């Protein structure tokens, strides 16, 4: 049955609808004009010479948060007329918020960055300040070229590192003792033996938080570090593809290691650091003996122990050597944390970054974050025994590569991590990892 409508109502309704549509359209158009394109952000320099710097960091709690508060206050004291406004943002959300802020033209002046391909993307969009001329001599000497190069793109510098985070294997020495292991393993075969010994004591040999993917991927990165020469890896960073056979070898090495089943049960659903039930938590509670992780681990483990103090028997040894590879002996892989300036930030931003690199501040950083500072001058402040071993290895390393997923950029890095997890889950093989990387460019 059809609707009965009188013609005059028809006309009226149509007009009503038109009125509605018209006004709605006007409003939307007005908004469109306002929302289209981000205006260039205004510099935060007031006319009276007062400058405000906004800073985003990711220490939402604890001594880290306090450190930045104190450092900012010290900077304000040393530079009258400058205020530093700090915001702490949860780590997982940092990337998303930062990207949105950069897009809207309203970015923080100082923001966290980790170098590598991710930073390169931001640089390409013209959103980062070139610091090459702004870096003070003191900063350059303190940090050294190798560390600063993590933030160098096309020969120009775009950030100042605050911490270096080399990776290696942390272990609970008490558990080693209980299993009768005399000394930490130096080669991969020795590692497999140690793992077998520990398994017999009922403890999981190695904890890995494969749910977060990157902890599993770190195993691949380190095997690649042992299999590939520095030149090959640098070249791959440029071409962003895995052409050299050493990448395949790395995958095969990892595969045979996996076959000895050295990891904790249920590693696919174990997170790396997300509180209770994570791989760090397992180490903290002596449910697992070893974990391959970066230099932030002692602090994380400390928060998960029963008494919430640092684990007393935590020690460290470097990733074992793997025979038949082209990697330099003692080479290390690690990340670099640091800060960059927004392209429209006031010049005081560079001053702030130089300030953070000063010896005193770096020492305080090392203590607050229980980590290895970027500045060589501040290395004496490192007291944790595991970290001291890391420092030793770090200073003797012929070269240090940045994490492969940071190096290759998010797109490739993500695909690489997924492929490694597939292998851990028994799904993929060494060739699949290579293919995943080479195919990733299509999805960008």
């Amino acid at each position, binding site marked *: 049955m059809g*609707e009965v*409508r009188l013609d005059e109502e*028809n006309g009226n*309704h*149509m007009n*009503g*609808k038109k009125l509605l*549509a018209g006004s709605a359209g006007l409003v939307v158009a007005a*908004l469109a004009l*306002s*929302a289209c394109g*981000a205006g260039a952000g205004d510099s935060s320099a007031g006319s009276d010479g007062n400058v405000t710097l906004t800073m985003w960091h*990711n*220490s*939402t*709690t*604890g001594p*880290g*948060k306090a450190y930045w508060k104190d450092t900012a206050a010290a900077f304000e004291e040393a530079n009258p007329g400058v205020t530093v406004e700090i*915001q702490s*943002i*949860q*780590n*997982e*959300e940092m990337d*998303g*918020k930062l*990207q*949105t802020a950069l*897009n*809207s033209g*309203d970015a923080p002046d100082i923001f966290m960055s980790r170098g590598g391909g991710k930073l390169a993307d931001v640089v390409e969009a013209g959103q980062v300040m070139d610091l090459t001329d702004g870096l003070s001599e003191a900063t350059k000497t303190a940090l050294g070229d190798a560390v600063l190069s993590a933030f160098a793109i096309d020969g120009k510098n775009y950030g100042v590192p605050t911490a270096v985070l080399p990776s290696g294997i942390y272990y609970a020495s008490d558990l080693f003792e209980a299993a009768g292991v005399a000394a930490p393993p130096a080669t991969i075969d020795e590692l497999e033996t140690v793992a077998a010994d520990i398994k017999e004591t009922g403890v999981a040999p190695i904890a890995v938080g494969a749910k977060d993917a990157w902890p599993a991927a770190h195993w691949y990165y380190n095997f690649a570090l042992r299999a590939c020469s520095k030149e090959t890896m640098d070249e791959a960073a440029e071409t962003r593809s895995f052409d050299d056979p050493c990448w395949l070898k790395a995958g095969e090495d990892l595969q045979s290691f996996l076959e000895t089943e050295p990891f904790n049960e249920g590693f696919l659903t174990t997170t790396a*650091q*997300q*509180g*209770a*039930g*994570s791989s*760090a*938590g*397992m180490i*903290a*509670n002596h*449910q697992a003996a070893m974990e391959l992780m970066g230099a*932030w681990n002692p*602090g*994380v483990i400390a*928060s*998960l*122990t*029963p008494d*919430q103090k640092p684990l007393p028997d935590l020690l460290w040894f470097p990733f074992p050597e793997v025979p038949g590879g082209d990697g330099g002996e003692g080479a290390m892989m690690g990340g670099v944390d640091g800060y960059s300036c927004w392209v429209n930030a006031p010049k005081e931003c560079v001053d702030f970054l130089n300030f953070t690199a000063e010896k005193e501040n770096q020492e305080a950083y090392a203590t607050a974050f229980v980590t290895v500072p970027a500045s060589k001058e501040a290395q004496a402040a490192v007291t944790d025994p595991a970290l001291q071993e890391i420092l030793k290895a770090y200073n003797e390393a012929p070269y240090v590569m940045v994490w492969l997923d940071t190096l290759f950029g998010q797109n490739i890095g993500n695909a690489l991590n997924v492929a490694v997890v597939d292998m851990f889950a028994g799904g993929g093989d060494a060739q699949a990892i290579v293919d995943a990387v080479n195919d990733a460019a299509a999805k960008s």
Partner: protein
Amino acid sequence: MAVIDTIEIPPPREHEAPGQRRSGQVLIYLVALVLIGLMLAPVAYIILGGFRSNADITVDPSGFPSVWHWENYADVLVSPVFWQQVGNSTIAAVATTVLVVALGLMAAFALSRYSFRGRGLIYAIFTAGLMFPMTVAITPLYILVRNLGLTNSLVGVIIPQIAFALPITIIILVPFLAAIPHELQEAASIDGCSRLGFFWRMVIPLSMPGVITVGILAFIASWNSYMLPLFLLSTESTFTLPLGTQAFASQYSVDTARVLAFTSLSMIPALVFFSLFERRIVGGLTGAVKG
């Protein structure tokens, strides 16, 4: 108007023996009880988890708290930040709910009881809003809110929340409003009531179950909303409760026990709201057209 002309009612059966019926009832109760127990077990886990320490949870995931860490809950309750966030969440949720119900009810009324060209189109536009994942639209939305100068304010969070809650509100309300018989409308207009008057005086009370339902849904959606406030609010004094969990998650670790305690406490106001209003999901058209 032919309404329900044929409802097939099967021939009367023999009356069941009283005993059978009672045991059938008991069975139903039992099943319901078991179901509810299963539903609440995870919630109990979350609440109890707040009383433990991270080490406890790691070592013995299924265990009861051996040492009751009251401080996890106590610390949250005495922290002024928590109460500030409760306040912000409440303001945002109440404002969102009231406005969503108001706007949604009006729009649903128009869509269900007026006929005009483009009605189907407008309804389709509202429905379309449900189908696009919001995580993708957040960047342009952020820019829009920023250009309106509303970042870092609860208003900037409330208005988009209203917009996102409209589709489901309208979709649910339209059939409820459409079910109000036209006889009532005619009777009202015969008595001299305009259509808007009819809306005000009769439709709203008669569609109460639907209104309460969408109100509850809108409140809960706003209360739990995480992504929108995350992107739009940067000053800690404006944070809503879901953002408060960030304080327990630093760069490299998460204080699981405290997060569980915090979120257990956060759900209480939403539950209170629900229990206050669910009693009102009654009435409606029963007896409205009698005699």
